[in-house]
């Protein structure tokens, strides 16, 4: 197992995703002799996981069962330990395409946060690219570096614990793309430019507030970035449902001379409801994650 390469079988030391249900999954570090508690009972790693095929059904001690899935950046995003607010797959997918990421891309990122985007970047730029990620907070930088090791992607990434606004990304002239998710992205724009290849590349800044976007767009323009474009993307989930719509009874069009007890003789209505397949949205949905501002650094 690695986050950039599929395996067929679960091995000691892997990180696997235990799927309990659609909205209940958890990551598990597979260790000979270890156990994991779930609401369906205990999973014994040695007998229940190691050597089994990814995707297998595992019966827990209480008789309930789960599926053990191969980790992907997308499953990681919905199961990772939150040390900060994180980017979700809808934004990540857009960022990945709009930054022109592909195998071999060199990317700079700040802040690393909980590493949600980092894993998706690493998946896309492997096996020949590199990620330089800068995290202001020391504990978080250490935690994410440890995760990269466990996920066997540490050869593709350099974690730096510094203030990107003051100290930049620690590299110059190497990046094809830069991603900013920090409170004052406009302060890091010049560092983004420095980090990028002379030939040019793409930059993205994620900000929740429009004022941040305004300042960032101004800074990008001031530093000669082009094709500055701000967008927002929202996911809409459609829950598939079968619903039953009762049919109204408009009565008979015969004269109404029936006696009270005649009602018993009325034929039963033919249909009383129609069944349809439809979708419904969840009652509340995320209405905003952040604005994504993209720009192109021209040749300099």
């Amino acid at each position, binding site marked *: 197992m690695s986050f950039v390469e599929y395996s067929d079988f679960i091995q000691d030391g892997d990180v696997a995703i235990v799927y309990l249900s659609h909205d209940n999954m958890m990551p598990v570090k597979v260790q000979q002799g270890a156990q994991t508690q779930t609401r369906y009972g205990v999973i014994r790693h040695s007998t229940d996981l190691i050597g089994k095929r990814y995707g297998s059904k595992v019966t827990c001690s209480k008789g309930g069962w789960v599926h053990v899935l191969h980790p992907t950046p997308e499953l990681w995003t919905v199961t990772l330990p939150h040390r*900060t*607010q994180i980017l979700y797959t809808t934004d990540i997918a857009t960022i990945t395409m709009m930054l022109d990421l592909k195998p071999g891309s060199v990317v700079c990122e700040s*802040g690393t*946060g909980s590493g949600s985007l980092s894993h998706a970047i690493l998946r896309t730029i492997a096996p020949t690219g590199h990620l330089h990620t800068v*995290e*202001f*907070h020391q*504990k*978080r930088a250490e935690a994410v570096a440890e995760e990269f090791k466990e996920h066997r992607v540490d050869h593709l990434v350099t974690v730096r614990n510094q203030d990107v606004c003051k100290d930049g990304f620690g590299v110059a002239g190497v990046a094809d793309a830069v991603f900013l*998710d*920090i*409170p004052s992205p406009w302060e890091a724009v010049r560092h983004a430019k420095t980090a990028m290849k002379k030939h040019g590349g793409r930059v993205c800044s994620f900000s*929740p*507030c*429009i*004022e*941040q976007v305004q300042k960032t767009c101004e800074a990008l323009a001031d530093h000669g970035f082009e094709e500055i474009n701000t967008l927002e993307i929202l996911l*809409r989930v459609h829950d598939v449902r079968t*619903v*039953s*719509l*009762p*049919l*109204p*009874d*408009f*009565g*008979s*069009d*015969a*004269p*109404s*001379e*029936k*006696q*009270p*007890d005649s*009602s*018993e003789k009325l034929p039963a*209505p033919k249909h*009383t*409801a*129609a069944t*349809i*397949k*439809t979708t*419904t*949205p*969840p*009652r*509340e*949905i*995320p*209405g*905003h994650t*952040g*604005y994504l501002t993209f720009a192109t650094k021209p040749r300099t």
Partner: protein
Amino acid sequence: MADNGDEEYRIKEGDYVVLKRGDIYKAVQIQTRKKVIFEKQWFFLDNAVGHLYSTTFEIVSGGTLQPQARKSTDSSSDAKEAGTDNRNILDDGKSQKLTRDDIETLKEQGLKGQEIIQQLIDNSSTFRDKTEYAQDKYIKKKKKKYENTVTILKPSCRILAMMYHGREPGKICHLRYDTLSQMLTLANIHAGSKVLVFETCAGLVLGSVMDRMGGYGSVIQMYPGGGPVRAGVESFGFPAHFHNMLHDFPICHVNALLAGTLDTTAKDISSSDSKQSDVAAEEEQTQPEAKQQDSPEEQSMETNTGTDDGQDQEKEEKERRKEAKAQEKKVKLEEKRKKLAAAAALLEGRNADGLVIASRFHPCPVLMSLLKFLSPSRPFVVYSQYKEPLIECYTKLREQGGTVNLRLTDTWLRHYQVLPNRTHPVLLMSGGGGYLLSGTTIATDRSKPPGPQRVEEPAPKRPKLTDAVV
């Protein structure tokens, strides 16, 4: 507080009012010594009487209301200063310096909810570093726990629509307030017209239509099952004369009325809508099954049982009571009959000015039947929580003719937080507000059967090859 000409703005005994805290609303009636439960707190509204509407009250010991000095209830949110990301937060569980005991002490010192929350914020080492989203969540949680104010509002269509949508969307078929606003406008609801309403939205839609008609004109509520549901209409607190414009007609007589076979002089004509109380009808309304359709039978069964034998005196007594009741029933039935006849007379002209449908029933048969009561060149609007039934309505109408301007729509509603340097769309939004089909009736040549219509609504301007046009 002692101003002239303020009488209409003062809270009176018996008024229907709306309680408000934050985004939470609840409609209640002002009744003496009546305990009210709102947001898990109970209190009495007695003290509110005589105060102006929109006054905010503090709930003090014994559930008494005490008017608050004017000025903003959300200073705690003004005091916020968000960290934009939470890069400096470590979850060590030690961020709150106040202990449970500290808080109890604050309470004993008589600190009010809002002050306690501010204390909690001030004593949280991480609050300022939290992202705004996290801050909001924190304040909301604490507010729920410690705040104890309530504002009393005069009800309005806007407030009641927001209340139902927030509290009991299931009761109003998940009709969102902005969708309701579209319906009232698309149906051109206004004073002096004659409007048909078919709804199972607790009376909210009916009440909104009445509100927009201001007591002028007539509204005919077409109702399914045992009786018209109007709990929501009461909450509007309309003046008495508004009810003069309200009529109702049971849909089980619609076919007979259309066929011209409805005899409103028949004795048992209203048997299908007697007895069952609104409350019972409303309770059934939250059930997905179409049980209501059966209830008339069940009831007549009931009234035919019992009264076999017993002790003599009791029997006589019973007999007398029974007769009185029967008499009473007769009078009531006669009233019902008259009402029905009046409603039937309003409908018979088939010259209504508008039609509004919003129900848990399949809208297609409802629409096809009730459209027949409209004059030509009049708007109609149908709400459904789901798109598919409206596609069916659209298709049927296009086949049948008699309408133009058909449009299937929904709306997308977004609220914003506008604050210095913190402006953005609200982080949670409603997933959907339901769908509307609207259109306008036209005159049909009734002598000829409705033949295939000219396709009047053209294909999209650049038709795509993969789209076969209807």
